[in-house]
């Protein structure tokens, strides 16, 4: 086997190990009671509040209590797994595990987090609407379709961001430096 594929393989596995380690650390932070109570629950309540306002502006007469959005005939409780935090963790772990400058990482994290949350807001609003008007479709829309769409969006955002970092990391690698000298 030539040297280049071994080095690429090593980089790839190294990224994966860093990604899994970061994901574990993020999970431990987010799952701890103090962080959950002080950050995650208020953040989820804020998502419910914004979703409720948008639903009301669309004429749905939704009432928000904590992390719950209710109407006269349907209600949803936004829990962990539905607040976009899980996709943000995945995205954050991937961005931090990828070789790039800290400035680019921070920019990527910020833009990615905002984009994921905007899509998740759309998810909460449409799921509430589906539950209210098409209840038979709620379970599959909730568990499979929207969950997959939000996570895929996070993964594709990461790939898009990573493809823009590639020239930098290639320049820093021995093969990239060699190419630069010849270039």
């Amino acid at each position, binding site marked *: 086997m030539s040297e280049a594929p071994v080095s*690429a393989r090593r980089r*790839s596995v190294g990224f994966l190990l860093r990604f*899994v380690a970061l994901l574990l650390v993020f*999970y431990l932070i987010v799952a701890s009671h103090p962080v959950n109570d002080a950050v995650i629950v208020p953040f989820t309540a804020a998502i419910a509040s914004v979703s409720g306002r948008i639903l009301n502006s669309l004429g749905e007469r939704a009432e928000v209590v904590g992390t719950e959005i209710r109407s006269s005939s349907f209600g949803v409780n936004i829990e962990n797994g539905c607040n976009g935090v899980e996709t943000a963790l995945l995205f954050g772990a991937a961005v931090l595990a990828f070789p790039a400058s800290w400035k680019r990482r921070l920019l990527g994290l910020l833009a990615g987090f905002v984009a994921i949350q905007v899509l998740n807001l759309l998810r909460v609003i449409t799921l509430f609407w589906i539950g209210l008007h098409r209840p038979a479709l709620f379970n599959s829309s909730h568990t499979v379709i929207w969950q*997959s769409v939000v*996570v895929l969006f996070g993964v594709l955002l990461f*790939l898009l961001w990573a*493809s823009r970092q590639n020239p930098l990391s290639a320049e820093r690698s021995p093969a990239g430096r060699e190419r630069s000298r010849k270039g």
Partner: protein
Amino acid sequence: MLNARAALRAFVGFFLALAFWFGFSRAYERGLAGAAQALTNLFESPDVTRLAPSNGEILLDRRDFPPGSARPGLPGPDIHFNFVLLVTLFALDRKPLRGAHVARFLAAAGMLFLVHVLALVFQVHSVYATSLGPWSAANYGPVARNFWAAGFHFYQIAGRFAAPFALWWLFGRREEELAPEKPARTKKRKRRA
């Protein structure tokens, strides 16, 4: 890699995977329940755990449960819907139906099945350790309770989304895929002298 054609391939892959998943998830749950039951039984004496799929749930039964007591139902789709994510990511490839790529997809899908089996085993023990009142307290200590419950919670929050991504990264991604797609080469025609 992430151009309009890749997005279209992912879009088509997503809907094909959804259709496949809706069509075959009941059959898949039978295999999943059987494998998870076998793995759970391996470490039980006597082997009392029984897992039976029923209408999108996997019913958890024990031979030593009182006959009239309720049987917990574990939602199957929550465990294995991430198959759709795996297919979509593999569909990003420039030639997703190439033999070698399909072989790598099958290897990744096989690994994902093992992840699903492990997740279900963790969920079963999580129910045993935390949801059966005095029976749980008598049979699971604090360390075991936290191990099984946190293990399954990690799968719910992060693992089920990270597993397809990690498997695709390992098996399906090509190194050049993080670089922009090159335009197709045009054949040079020889000029006649």
